[in-house]
C-alpha cells in the first residue's frame, strides 16, 4: 500500500497477540477446558470476519438483491454440521459420554420468536454472531445493537414462562427417534441439496434480467 493514508498496524497486532497469549495462559492456570473454549471462540470470530460470513446476508440478500452466494455457503455449513453432529453423537453414545443436542420444545413461541428475530437481524445489520463480530470490528451501530440485545434477551428470558403457559408447547422432535438415523441424514441432505439448487437457480434468474 503506497498510499499515505494507509498505516501498518503490525505493532498493535503484535501487542494484541501478546495480550491474547497472556489471557489464554492465565486462564489455563484456572481451567484448561475454558481455555480451549476461549481459543475456539477466538477462532470462530477470526474466521467469521476473514470470510465476511454473515447469516443475515444469507437470508436477506436473496430477497433484496438476488444474490445467494452466502446462502449457498450457509447450506454447506449446515451440511457439514449435520454430518459432524451425527458422528459426534454416535461416538458419544458408543463411549457413554453425556452429550446434549439442541432439540428444543416446539410451540407458538418458536414461530413468533423466529419472525421477531428475523425482523430484528435485518434492522440491526447482523444476527447475534454478526453483531458480536462487528462489535469487535468497531462499528458503533452494532454496539447500540448489542445493548438492545442485552435488554431484549433478559425480557425474553423472563417471559418464556408466560408464553409456555399461554400457548403450551410440545416436546422437541428428534428426527432420528422417528425415522432412524440413516433416513434422517439422507432426508436432510436431500433437502439441503434441493435448497442449494433452488438458491443457485434464483441467483441466475435474478442476474439474468
Amino acid at each position, binding site marked *: 500500500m503506497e498510499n499515505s493514508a494507509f498505516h501498518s498496524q503490525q505493532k498493535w497486532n503484535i501487542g494484541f497477540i501478546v495480550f491474547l497469549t497472556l489471557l489464554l495462559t492465565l486462564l489455563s492456570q484456572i481451567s484448561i477446558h475454558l481455555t*480451549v473454549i476461549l481459543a475456539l*471462540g477466538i477462532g470462530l*470470530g477470526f474466521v467469521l470476519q476473514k470470510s*465476511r*460470513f454473515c447469516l443475515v446476508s444469507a437470508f436477506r440478500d436473496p430477497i433484496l438483491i438476488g444474490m445467494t452466494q452466502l446462502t449457498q455457503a450457509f447450506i454447506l455449513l449446515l451440511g457439514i454440521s*449435520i454430518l459432524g453432529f451425527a458422528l459426534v453423537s454416535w461416538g458419544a453414545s458408543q463411549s457413554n459420554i453425556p452429550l446434549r443436542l439442541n432439540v428444543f420444545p416446539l410451540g407458538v413461541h418458536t414461530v413468533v420468536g423466529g*419472525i421477531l428475530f428475523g425482523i430484528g437481524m435485518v434492522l440491526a*445489520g447482523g444476527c*447475534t454472531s454478526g453483531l458480536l463480530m462487528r462489535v469487535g470490528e468497531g462499528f458503533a451501530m452494532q454496539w447500540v445493537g448489542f445493548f438492545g440485545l442485552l435488554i431484549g434477551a433478559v425480557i425474553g428470558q423472563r417471559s418464556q414462562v408466560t408464553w409456555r403457559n399461554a400457548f403450551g408447547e410440545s416436546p422437541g422432535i428428534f*428426527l432420528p427417534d422417528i425415522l432412524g438415523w440413516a433416513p434422517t441424514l439422507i432426508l436432510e441432505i436431500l433437502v439441503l441439496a434441493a435448497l442449494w439448487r433452488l438458491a443457485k437457480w434464483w441467483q441466475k434468474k435474478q442476474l439474468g434480467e
Partner: protein
Amino acid sequence: MNKILPTIFHGPWAYWIGAIILGVLNILVLIVRREPWGITYNIALWGEWIGTNLGVLNDRGLTIHNLMAATGTYLNLGLILGALWATLVASQVRFKPIRDKKFFFSALIGGLLMGYGARIAYGCNIGALLNGIASSSLTGWIFAIAVFSGAWLGSKLLLKYLM
C-alpha cells in the same frame, strides 16, 4: 510461504472456505463443550446480572462466579476478540461512528427484537437455527422458516424506512 501467509491474513477468504472452517470449529465446540455452540442464552445471563446489580431486576441468585464459569461467556468473548484480531492482522482497524440517526434507532429496535425473539424461541441463528438443524431437530427447521419470513418482513421495513 512468504506469499501465502500474508494472503491468508489479509483476506477476504471465499465464503465456502469460511463455511468449511466454521463447520469444523462448530463440531469441535460440540466435542469440547458437550453441547452445541450458542450465543444468546449467555447474553441473557449477563443481562440478568447487570440488571440485578443496577437494582432494576429482582435478584434470582445469579453470581459473577456462575458467569465466569459459564462456557458461553468465553465463546462470546472469544468471538469479539477474534474478530478484532482478524481486522488488526490486516491493518484494517478503524472506529466506525454512526453517521445517521436512523441507524441508531434501527440498531436499538433490531437488537431488542432479536434478543426477545431468540430467548422465547430458546435460541438465535446459531443455537436454534444452525445447531438446531445440525442436531436433527424438527424445531430447528421450523425456526428457520420463521426466521426467513421475519427477514422478508424486515427487508420490507428496511426499504421503507432506512433507504
